[in-house]
């Protein structure tokens, strides 16, 4: 972990401890999760008990203490999506990826999570992958969705290499 990230974030909020949630969200955006070292480092610099940071990180659903997948799949389980069969889609995604909600595939390419409502209720059931919304989902479309992102992911990795 690069300590410069933490410094940058602290500087952005002028070290104001009231902005702690904003700081954690920013750090997560950059590092894609909240590593232990990041929390310890932040606590030390803000002169705050690290337990307080853990408490906040554990309290909010959007904050993650575990690494997320390169393709992070969020299945909306809001009421509108639920009555239109979100649980079927979640089951199918879990089945095809071989992981449970909250887990990441061993190669870290995919992560699966549920989200309470993404506010795109008219398009339900909705699945959000890396911030992109996919409306009118069906268990039948799961395979294609995974393949699409797996393909994109491979290409990106290749480019990176």
């Amino acid at each position, binding site marked *: 972990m690069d300590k410069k990230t933490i410094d940058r974030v602290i500087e952005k909020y002028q070290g104001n401890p009231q902005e702690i949630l904003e700081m954690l969200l920013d750090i997560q955006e950059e590092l894609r999760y909240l590593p232990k070292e990041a929390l310890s480092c932040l606590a030390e610099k803000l002169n705050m008990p690290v337990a307080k940071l853990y408490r906040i990180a554990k*309290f909010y659903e959007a904050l993650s203490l575990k690494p997320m997948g390169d393709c992070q799949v969020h299945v909306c389980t809001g009421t509108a999506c639920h009555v239109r069969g979100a649980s079927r889609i979640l089951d199918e995604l879990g*089945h095809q990826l071989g992981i449970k909600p909250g887990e990441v595939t061993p190669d870290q390419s995919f992560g699966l999570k549920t989200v309470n409502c993404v506010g795109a209720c008219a398009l339900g059931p909705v699945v959000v992958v890396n911030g992109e919304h996919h409306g009118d989902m069906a268990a039948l479309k799961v395979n294609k969705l995974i393949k699409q992102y797996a393909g994109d992911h491979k290409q990106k990795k290749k480019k990176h290499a």
Partner: protein
Amino acid sequence: MNRLTSVSDMEKLQKELASRNQPERPVVTLCQGTGCKAYASGKIYKAFEKELALRGLTQKVSLKSTGCHGFCEQGPIIVILPEEICYCRVKPEDIPEIVEKTLVEKKTVDRLLFTDPVSGEKFAHESEIPFYKYQRRVIFGKNRLVDPQNIEDYIGLEGYSALAHAITRLNPEKVLLEVKKANLRGRGGAGFPTGIKWETTRNAPGEKKYVIVNADEGDPGAYMDRSLLEGNPHLVLEGLAIGAYAIGAREGFVFVRQEYPLALENINKAVQQAKEYGLLGKNILGSGFDFDVTVKRGAGAFVSGESSALISAIEGSAGEPRPKHVNAAVSGLWGSPTSLNNVETWANVPLIMNKGAGWYGSIGSDKNPGTKIFSLVGKVNNTGLIEVPLGTPLRNIIYDIGGGIKDGKKFKAVQTGGPSGGCIPEQHLDVPVDFDRLSQMGSMMGSGGMIVMDEKSCMVDVAKYFMQFLKEESCGKCISCRAGIKEMHEILERITLGEGCEKDLEQLTDLAWITENASLCALGRTASNPVISTLKYFREEYKAHIREKHCPAGVCKALIHYSIDPERCNGCGRCQKVCSVEAVEGEKGAPISINNDFCIRCGICQEACRFNAVMVE
């Protein structure tokens, strides 16, 4: 752009913007809300830009990105002004034809018009479409005219006039009186009179006072606050500034869920632009009134939308509720008097100031003036955001605007009020929807989610769903809420597994009572509503699960099995291909069967079947 330093500066700008306006010039408005964006409306914008340039029409036709129009299910939506020709489910490849036919030849592209799913009738103009026709969009209507990322668009439509008038011509007491007279009630769900809340904050001792926009819209199934913040952020900011003036606050916060990235982007941009134009900040329009706004992000905790919890979150703690021996209006943010209102409530304020309390009271019903935005979703034909006067009967909403139930199925219930609400059955469909009537029926307004359920929705499953939701979202502070919800969830789980007994229903009622009466905040106090309302209206369905081990809606996995109707099956093998556990048996070409020993009841075979041959019992 120079900062506006007086009302005459603003009027000058408004005149200039009006003079630039050419009513005859075609304007293509494209919805760029989250819903339409999910259907690639960004690509459509680019396709339009390209096509207009190709034909040399860039100078003759305006292209405008707008916020959500509401009819999200038909997205991406394009409306061509001034004729208001509305095209639905547009694809990038349709753009050359639209430009050619509609913009050049002035004809419509019939296949892209909205087709009524029941009558099959096509409608060319937005205002004729039943989904829009029966609405009264006084708050939400401007979304389709304004580019949310351009403050001048809002100012051009008399935006910020109400603020200018209030802070330069009226004293704060007068503003407060007008909002009180209008009897605006909090759109976040409880329906508390906004004017009284403001007055309490204004009169509370303390130099510093705060105003907060609650945009931590956590009710699953509701998204009107997202669409307002995304589509018309200045309307919310203007309302907030007027409220701050009336209350005597100099600082305000907008607390937005981080799950709403576009709303965050647009409100941040709006705050920045308003500051540049001198409509926020020091000495607004030379009136001597200072007001500043900060945007804060939530992080996915449902309970943080509760007022005291939201205040804790802004202060930098975990967003947990606090005991309210003293109301936030008296002692809120950092112990100072604070008025916290929902997005839609603030959005109503400029309208009240512009048109007056008398006009406002003419809309809606007696003790429930004004309109309310609902998200009409679930198993209904036309889904999206709708705005109707309070007091409109549910039946009109679901059948006239919503076009009835999907796929010709039967209506079963409508769930309102989010996890704190209840399920309303068919016999109450004619009841007018307002704050008081919904509570009388054992539900509540909530932020305005309206999830329609048909005969294929299991009410025990719905109750279980909400208990699961609340079990995870309960902060755990009160044992009645922490353990009560968990216990109710366990009982419901048992019932849906076919392991319930008669006594369970009694126990559910008892637990519901305790949770309701012994919890600190609204989450716990209203958590039992889904259980109580389904027990009240759908007790027979509970009994079927318990006595006959049968789920009449065919939802509860442990109580159903899939089979294939040999009359309908032609042995195409599609279901066999998609089944991941090889439970579909038989040879291709001949009717096949499902082996229930292997079947995991995922239902994918039913989705795949094109002949309706897969049955659930």
